[in-house]
């Protein structure tokens, strides 16, 4: 997966959320860190076209995130901070089927794909359950399943361990470790990205750190003091 930002900038109501940025991301494990309001989420949302750059452009495998948004979203899945909002239909198996509609599969194929992704995350027993009945960890896994059922190549996760207890946090962490897809994780949970290949640090709308996890995290700790 090749993500390219070329002088991409995000402004909102006259305020610069993300300064013009040029970079290329090809690693399989990328972490994004920074203080609240530093531009992390805006940066991540630009990767799958949820936020359009106000200047410059962003491409994923050569597809422009604005002009070819459908092609980009077929490759890039996004998991939001609140998994409750990620799951659109209340019953898990219905939600998975909703995501698969664009593929025009038969009912049997939809069931097979849904069963496969639920089994992959060890939550096949939750297929008939309602989202509000799930624990925080189960809900986060369900959100991942809802996105990965369409088989994107890259998964972006916005604070996936936010508000989880230690047990659920570890469950989600192990699941992320086992993903064969490329991942971009925005997080304040620095242990989660401790062994990632590359970590980006944002501060006041600027990319101020970019390198191996240990170096960038150490720099971030100093910045946050």
């Amino acid at each position: 997966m090749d993500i390219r930002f070329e002088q991409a900038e995000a402004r909102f109501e006259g305020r610069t959320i993300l300064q013009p940025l040029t970079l290329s991301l090809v690693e399989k494990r990328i972490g994004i860190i920074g203080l609240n309001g530093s531009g992390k989420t805006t940066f991540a949302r630009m990767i799958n076209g949820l936020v359009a750059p106000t200047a410059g452009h962003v491409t994923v495998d050569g597809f422009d995130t604005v002009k070819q948004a459908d092609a980009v979203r077929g490759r890039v899945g996004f998991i939001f901070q609140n998994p409750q909002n990620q799951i659109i239909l209340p019953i898990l198996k219905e939600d998975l089927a909703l995501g698969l509609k664009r593929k025009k599969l038969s009912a049997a194929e939809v069931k097979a794909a849904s069963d496969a992704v639920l089994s992959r995350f060890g939550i096949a027993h939750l297929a008939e359950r309602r989202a509000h009945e799930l624990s925080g960890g189960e809900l986060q896994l369900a959100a991942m399943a809802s996105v990965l059922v369409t088989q994107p190549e890259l998964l972006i996760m916005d604070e996936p361990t936010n508000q989880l207890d230690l047990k659920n946090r570890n469950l989600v962490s192990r699941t992320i470790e086992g993903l064969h897809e490329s991942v971009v994780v925005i997080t304040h949970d620095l242990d989660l990205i401790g062994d990632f290949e590359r970590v980006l640090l944002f501060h006041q709308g600027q990319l101020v750190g970019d390198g191996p996890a240990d170096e960038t995290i150490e720099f971030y700790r100093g910045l946050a003091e």
Partner: protein
Amino acid sequence: MRTLYVEGGSVLHRLSARVKLIGLFLLSLLVFATHSPVLLGIVAVTCAAVYLSLNIGWRQSWLRIRVFSLTIVVVALFTLVLESPAAALETFFRLSAMMLAAAAVTATTTTGDFIDQITAAAWPLERIGLVKAADIGLGVGLVIRFVPEVVMRYQAIRDAHYARGLKMNVISTAVPLIILTLRNADEIAAAIDARSIRGQK
């Protein structure tokens, strides 16, 4: 998120969503075609019996229709004052029958089935280029999805008032309720876009 659907094995659960929606539509026509309070009363009682047979529980059954029931009572009272007792009774039974029938259909039909049926019903409009049928289905499904969420949010705002010893009023309730609902709707719209669900055929 919560859902209005209740699992069960009743006859209504087993009926296809299409049959239920067509039945609800025909019932709505029927109750407006007659002006007999007796006939409307029988229809309303029948609908109430069907609704109560779904084993939702008395309390939950009441909570689901409470707001609509109170609205119907207010409308009937206005009719009583402005017209006649017979007209008020007619209005009360007519609206009650529709509400109870709709509540029964909603409790026995999953949101996914609603979306599929509405999408199928809107398909002729898509063929003549007026709408995207899937978007209409998704829109209706989201409305149904949001009903219990708005109620939950109202309860949270009410609890926040109680916790701070404040009395509730229209402004202090409606403003946060609207803002929270719109913010939530924005997030869900973003999730729909991110998952490329909108605009499907």
